[in-house]
């Protein structure tokens, strides 16, 4: 294998480069002073930026500005939704949380914590082999224990295999039963059409750094008039549901990125989708015994492969050495690579799950990036397969 000096960043689902507009918006704010909760001129000017940003983000996601609650990450938004609804509705004797088994760790781990420490019960809604929640089964399970359900939480699209869920259909079931429903839309926002209002969900999590905004800022979109139990107590800055001085520069960067992502959504998606097709056909042409894990409805930028007989860890190391940066998609629990819970829930065995790799394409990905992967993939898989036999 030749040593390449070229690199291809194909881990945009983990995080993606900030767009120049977001860098600009953010850096303009970084040099200013002002706490958005202060009453004087500096405070008012920060507050103006925050509220304009809130309006822009609300617009981008089809919500009202008052429905947008800023958090420090998508993870925090998910924690607030799960714990907030759980604690708030516990008094009514509701202790069941319904989710799919393919949720992000930022859902499954707070859920597990609630189960272990707060007597919560998990209602698991099954998924099919493509990573999509089975609607009929979900409806049946939900209806059986509807009176005990605190919250339903189904991700809008999956971060590993890219499958898009039928959240609207589940929201309709929830609506019929008057149950709150949350969706983790961190991967969908800015990539595929998404409207809080049209989906008719109760709450939705967003994160800026997946759409070209800064790290460390997210939002929980929450229907008006609804109350949750806060997770962070303090100044009560965000509707008394979330405390902490507002991060004006990050919020400004988030809004700039969201605005561009929505304005360019169709053209970006079309480009990214084409690159994904190029990658998939190129890889499949070069490597035998390889399959693509994908649902019919999928995110434009995620290409997820199983390379039979090769371990994902070995593939990742060898590709990294060739300048190709991708992900096994598996969570690194306690530093130890484990087979992905998503793939296992989709019915894959441990071995196949460990032989999988995610390439995620973003707006800044080029054809040259894709062609670099295609040019190195065959010898890399061959070596990883040899290593898998020892």
């Amino acid at each position, binding site marked *: 294998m030749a040593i390449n000096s070229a690199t291809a960043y194909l881990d945009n689902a983990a995080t993606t480069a900030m767009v120049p507009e977001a860098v600009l918006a953010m850096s303009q704010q970084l040099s200013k002073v002002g706490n958005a909760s202060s009453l004087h001129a500096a405070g008012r000017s920060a507050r103006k930026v925050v509220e304009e940003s809130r309006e822009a983000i609300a617009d981008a996601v089809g919500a009202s500005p008052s429905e947008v609650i800023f958090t420090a990450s998508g993870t925090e938004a998910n924690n607030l939704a799960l714990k907030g609804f759980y604690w708030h509705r516990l008094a009514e004797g509701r202790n069941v949380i319904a989710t799919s088994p393919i949720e992000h760790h930022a859902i499954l781990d707070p859920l597990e914590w609630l189960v272990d420490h707060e007597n919560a019960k998990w209602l698991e809604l099954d998924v099919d082999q493509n990573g999509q929640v089975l609607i009929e089964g979900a409806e049946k399970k939900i209806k059986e224990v509807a009176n005990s359900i605190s919250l339903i939480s189904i991700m809008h699209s999956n971060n590993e295999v890219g499958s898009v869920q039928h959240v609207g259909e589940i929201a309709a079931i929830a609506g019929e039963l008057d149950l709150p429903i949350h969706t983790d839309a961190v991967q969908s926002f800015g990539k595929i059409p998404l409207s809080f209002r049209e989906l008719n969900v109760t709450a939705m999590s967003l994160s800026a750094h997946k759409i070209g905004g800064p790290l460390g800022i997210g939002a929980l979109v929450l229907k008006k008039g609804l109350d949750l139990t806060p997770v962070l107590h303090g100044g009560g800055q965000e509707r008394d549901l979330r405390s902490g001085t507002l991060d004006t520069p990050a919020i400004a960067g988030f809004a700039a990125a969201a605005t561009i992502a929505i304005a360019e959504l169709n053209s970006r998606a079309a480009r990214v989708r084409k690159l994904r097709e190029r990658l998939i056909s190129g890889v499949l042409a070069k490597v035998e015994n390889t399959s693509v894990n994908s649902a019919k409805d999928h995110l434009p930028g995620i290409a997820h492969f199983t390379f039979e007989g090769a371990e994902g860890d070995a593939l990742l190391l060898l590709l990294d050495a060739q300048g190709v940066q991708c992900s096994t998609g598996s969570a690194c629990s306690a530093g130890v690579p484990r087979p992905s819970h998503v793939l296992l829930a989709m019915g894959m065995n441990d071995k196949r799950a460990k032989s999988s790799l995610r390439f995620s394409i973003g707006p800044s990905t080029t054809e040259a990036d894709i062609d670099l992967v295609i040019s190195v993939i065959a010898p890399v898989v061959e070596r990883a397969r040899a290593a898998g*036999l020892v």
Partner: protein
Amino acid sequence: MKVIAAMSGGVDSAVAAARAVEAGHEVIGVHLALSANPQKYRSGARGCCTVEDSHDARRVADIIGIPFYIWDMASEFHEAVVDNFISEYSIGRTPNPCLRCNEKIKFAAVLNRARAMGYEKVVTGHYAKVVDSPTGPMLNRANDPEKDQSYVLAVLTQDQIAGAMFPLGDTHKVDVRAEAQARGFALAQKPDSHDICFVPSGDNAGWLRERLGSESGSILDEHGKKLGSHKGAYTYTIGQRKGLNLTVPANDGSPRYVLKIEPLSNTVVVGSHEKLAVSKISGSEIKWCGPVPGNEALRGFAQVRAHGQALPCSYKFDGVNLTAILDEPLYGLAAGQALVIYDGDRVVGSATIDHTDQAIGSSNGS
């Protein structure tokens, strides 16, 4: 050369990796995750492979500018090392898990994987030397006699030694620490790990009892007279003196030692020190670190413990077993330990001890 540096998060492997980079090799750092449920933090010198250790290893990789990955070897380690440890104890033998780990994990599972991926050698922080010779690479003792680890590497074949790189073989431990400090590694003063890494509490007997049960049995003297009782014969080792809790003193008041362990009847036999004398040691599972000797008797040195003395001996390989006859007897030797033969500083090879000529209990323990 493309090499994989096994980085435990300790000071030795950190400096070894740094030296490999400086020697011009293309190095990739790998931390072996050997437990499926690692502890979060180290407690003192106990245990290893905690999340904190992998973090320390990663920081070193950042500083020396190499890529870093974690390889999950937990199931391989469990099968080859932990299960073997338990089953050896259950039949009254005393295994050496570090040696097993080098043989089956670091220079087998890891080396083979590295080679298949196009990497030629595995770099570790072991104190030992690989010396080239007309008959191929040879394994030699390290310069630092206190730290020399050639004993726990004596299970490697010449092909495995060819795939090993030990950059610390010519350096003393104090200098390795100083070098780590000079290189700005935060782990420079981290204590050395002792004990058995998968028994983080350091309580081997308790750990074994949890896995093998704690049925009590008798402690007998050489004539079969009961002197006391114990909670699991396998928690004892031949030559052990402490922890017997005997209430009946010996006739002459001299201390008593474990002479024999009988797992089947769950009995421990104790007696006087001279009964531990061993002059003839034989073992199987022979590994030659260099050329295979003929079947004539040869002179050399035998070592039976990681930091034991090298005892002058003659040794002979009959094609199946390796037998060493010591010039002077040694006292207290358990089956399951490794008999390592040296020719000066060179490691000739090793065997796992099955039999000795100890007056009582000269068996494999069963």
